[in-house]
Structures are given as C-alpha cells and as structure tokens.
C-alpha cells in the first residue's frame, strides 16, 4: 500500500463470555479508499465497527486513525446504520446539523453548509420538512448528509441501504459513489450484498464467523467511475463468483 493508512488496526480482538466474536484482526485502510466488508451474520463485522467507532472496548490490540490511538474513544468517525436514526422532531436541515448540535452550538456556517449540501444532492426543497414526510431513500440520503457534515475523514457505513427496495438501493449506490468521489472521504462499508460490495469498493474484505475473522482481502480491479454497466461486466461476474465461494465454500 503506497498511500498512507488512515485507519490502522493491529491485533484487535473481542470476546463475549467464552465466545470469540472477533479473532485478532489486522486492517489497514488507505486514505480516500472505499473498502467493503462482507460476511454472514455473527462474523463480527458490526463488532469491528463498534470498536473502530469507540463504542466497544476491544480485549486487545490497537486502533489508530490518522496515526492517533483511539481505542475506546469516540468522536473520530462518521457513522451510519441501516436505521436512518433521523429524529422525528427536527426538520431535514436540523437533522443534518445534528452532530454539531450534540457537541457544540450550531452556527450560521453549519446551517449554510447543511442547506448547500441538501441543495446539491436534490433535497433542497425538503429542508423544512420533518423526516416522516420523506421516503426511505430520501431519509437515508439525509442520514448520509448528516454523516458527511461531521467532517470526519473516516465514514463507517453499516448496511446503510439494507432496508431499501432493490431499485432505490441501486439509485442510492450510484449516488453514494458520486458523493464519495466529490467529498474525498474514506469509507468502510458493511454489507450482506456481494453485488453492492463489488459495485462500490476498491477492496472487499470477506469475513467468516466462529471465530469472527477476515478470511480474504480482495482487490477490485474494476475501473472508476462505475455505472450500472459494470454489474454485467465479466470481471464483475468473476469477482462475484470468487467472493460467493469464499462466503459459502465449495469449488476453487
């Protein structure tokens, strides 16, 4: 890896009772890259996320973001889940500025930024709407804008599109690629969906359960920018086949 590692995990492990949820794991994520983690339920991917986010204390190992040790410390990443977690009592604009409101005073600059980002990504007309007036896809977009304006370089996205229908999901994936390219952030992305992981990422980490561990680190050779055509590209199909076998065993 030539570029600097934004995120550097070394020998991170976690045990709940006598169950090893995460075997000692090393992980380096280059600044500006898009890395996906695929694996079945119980493979420890959410545990890994919660350790990086600082919500969980690992039993051992180090977590460094931009060279700083952040084990057990919060406030260093942007974080988004399958549930949009928009608060119903705030408008779209105020939901976008949520992180600021939770840590300090919301300034005119914060508001202006929220409005601009909403205008840029097609939700400008909904700034004064409450979340309940929005569709699932729009809500996830607001949740992602809220994550972006935290100005964290590292964004942890835990199955953010998992609850959306297939059509909306593909729209959101294309949108996310645009925003990611424009924002220059680093994304660590959890998903069950192999297609999604290949369509979006530079690298795909395959995890397996009992104990949770990374069993493969797959480079994605597909060129960017990508659009729906890559979904039927032979390289895509070959990569998908390889990852499916890694996940479900059998063959090659």
């Amino acid at each position, binding site marked *: 890896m030539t570029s600097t590692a934004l995120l550097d995990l070394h020998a991170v492990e976690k045990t709940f009772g006598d169950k090893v949820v995460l075997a000692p794991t090393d992980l380096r994520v280059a600044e500006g890259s898009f890395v996906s983690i695929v694996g079945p339920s119980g493979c420890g991917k959410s545990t890994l996320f919660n350790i990086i986010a600082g919500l969980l204390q690992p039993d051992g190992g180090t977590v460094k973001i931009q060279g700083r040790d952040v084990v057990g410390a919060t406030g260093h990443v942007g974080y988004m889940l399958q549930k949009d977690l928009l608060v*119903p009592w705030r408008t779209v604009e105020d939901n976008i500025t949520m992180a600021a409101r939770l840590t300090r005073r919301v300034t005119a600059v914060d508001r202006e930024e929220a409005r601009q980002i909403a205008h840029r990504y097609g939700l400008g007309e909904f700034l004064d709407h409450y979340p309940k007036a929005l569709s699932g896809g729009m809500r996830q977009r607001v949740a992602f804008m809220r994550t972006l304006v935290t100005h964290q370089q590292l964004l942890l996205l835990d199955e953010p599109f998992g609850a959306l229908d297939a059509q909306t999901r593909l729209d959101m994936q294309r949108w996310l690629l645009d925003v990611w390219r424009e924002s220059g952030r680093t994304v660590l992305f959890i998903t069950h969906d192999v297609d999604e992981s290949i369509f979006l990422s530079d690298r795909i980490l395959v995890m397996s359960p009992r104990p949770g561990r990374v069993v493969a680190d797959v480079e994605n050779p597909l060129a960017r920018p990508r659009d729906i055509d890559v979904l039927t590209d032979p390289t895509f199909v070959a990569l998908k086949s390889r990852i499916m076998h890694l996940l479900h065993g059998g063959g090659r």
Partner: protein
Amino acid sequence: MNRKVLVRVVTPFVSIGLLLLVWQAVVVGFNVKPYVAPRPLVAIRAVSDNWAVLWPLVLEIIRETVFGFLGGALIGVFFGVIMSKVKFLQRIIYPQLILSQAVPVVAIAFPLTVILGFGSVKPIIAIVIWIVFFPVTVNVLDGLSHVDQDLLNLARVYGASRWRTFVQIEVPATVTPLFSGLKIGATYAITGAFIGELVSPPLGGTNLALYVEHANSNFDPASVYGVTLLMAAIGVTWFLLVAGAGVLATPWERRSVARRWRRRTIATPQGDH
C-alpha cells in the same frame, strides 16, 4: 375551517349533549322524583341562579386544581428523570411511589390535613399533587427508558456529552409520553381538589365541596348535580388545555413541513449554487 375539522370539533359536543338527553329521558320517562335526581336543565339552572355565591368558590377550586396540577407535573417529571438516570434510586423510590398510589387518597387526606394545617390550602394542593404526579412519573420513566439505543450510540460516536444527549435526544423523545401522563393527571386533578376541599375546609369560610355537602344535606339535588356538572366541565376544560399544549409541543406529529417561525433565521439563496 374545513368540514372535516368542523365535524371533529362538533362531534364531542354532540356526544355530551346526547348524554344529557339520555339523562333527561330517563328522569322524565321513569318519572324519577326531583329529590332523587333532577332534570339536567334544572341542575344547570341551580348553578346559574346561584352564580354570585358560586363563582368565587369555582375560582378557588380552579386555582387549587391548576397549581396542584403544575406541582404534580413538576414533581412527576423530577421523579421520572432521576429514576431513569440513577437505576439504584429507581429500585429504592419506585416501590414507595407505587405504595403511595395504593393508599386510598381519601384516607391519606386526613393525616395530610393535620400535618399541613387544617383549613389551609396546602393540604388541598398536596392531595392534587399526590394523585397527579404518578401517571406523569410512570410515563416519563417509560419514555426515557425506551429512547432508541442506536440513536444514543450515534450521539456517543459523535462525541456528545451526556447533558447534550439528554437535552437534544432524550427530552424531545419523551415529550409524547410526558403528555400522555399529563393528560391522565389533568382529569384526576379536579377530583383531588374536591377531596382536598372536603377534608380541609377554610376555617369559618366555605368552598365548593362544602357547598355540595350542604346542598346534599338540604335535599337540594339540583345543586349537587349542577355543581358536579360544573366540576366535570372544569376537568374537561383543563384536559383540553393540556392536550392542546401537547399538540403545540409536538408539531412534527401532525405537520409535514415546519411552521415558518420555526424555520431558518437567515435567508437562503435558493437554487443558484
């Protein structure tokens, strides 16, 4: 006002009017003697004819109801919040609060009067507080305990302090259950004030409860029923005011777009970015 809203406003009044009609029909139809139960209009006239005597007493019981309710609401919120924040205190306090509600209010009213001063307004307020705070506490505690854990985690990831998380997330998330508790308390409050007035009448003076008591012993059911109706009206009005405050406090539950005055404080250039 459109038709739908009109129907929604009018229906409750029609419903209560029907109840009075049934009352009238039963009294007339079964030939109920006036000393057993009066006709509704006679009961209402018994109030309006004596309005000069009644209104200071009515004002007084409204004051007791409102102040007792506000005190009960504050204390209810206080207990709800500290029990949700300190689990240890919850285990100690909750059983005592439940016990306080299992004790018949009328029974506890007498010792309260002795402690706080017979003839004073304090025991009356205390009794209203006693029955109002509990539904508030239970609902606030429930509300605070059911705030989405993922949302609280998100706040932690952002690096939010416990205080800001409380103010920005836990408090607004509890507004709806809080008002459920307040609405229950609002209907109880007038009953508490009446019981309080019965056990702690002002020395050498009178109050609405005594008025009803005297009317009852003077075989004047028209006044008993009339004042009872009046108190019911006070209770309903207070409930409606509290419910209305609840609606104002939760605009997001019935609106899609925030009202103008809630929106941005600074003008935004539209579109041309």
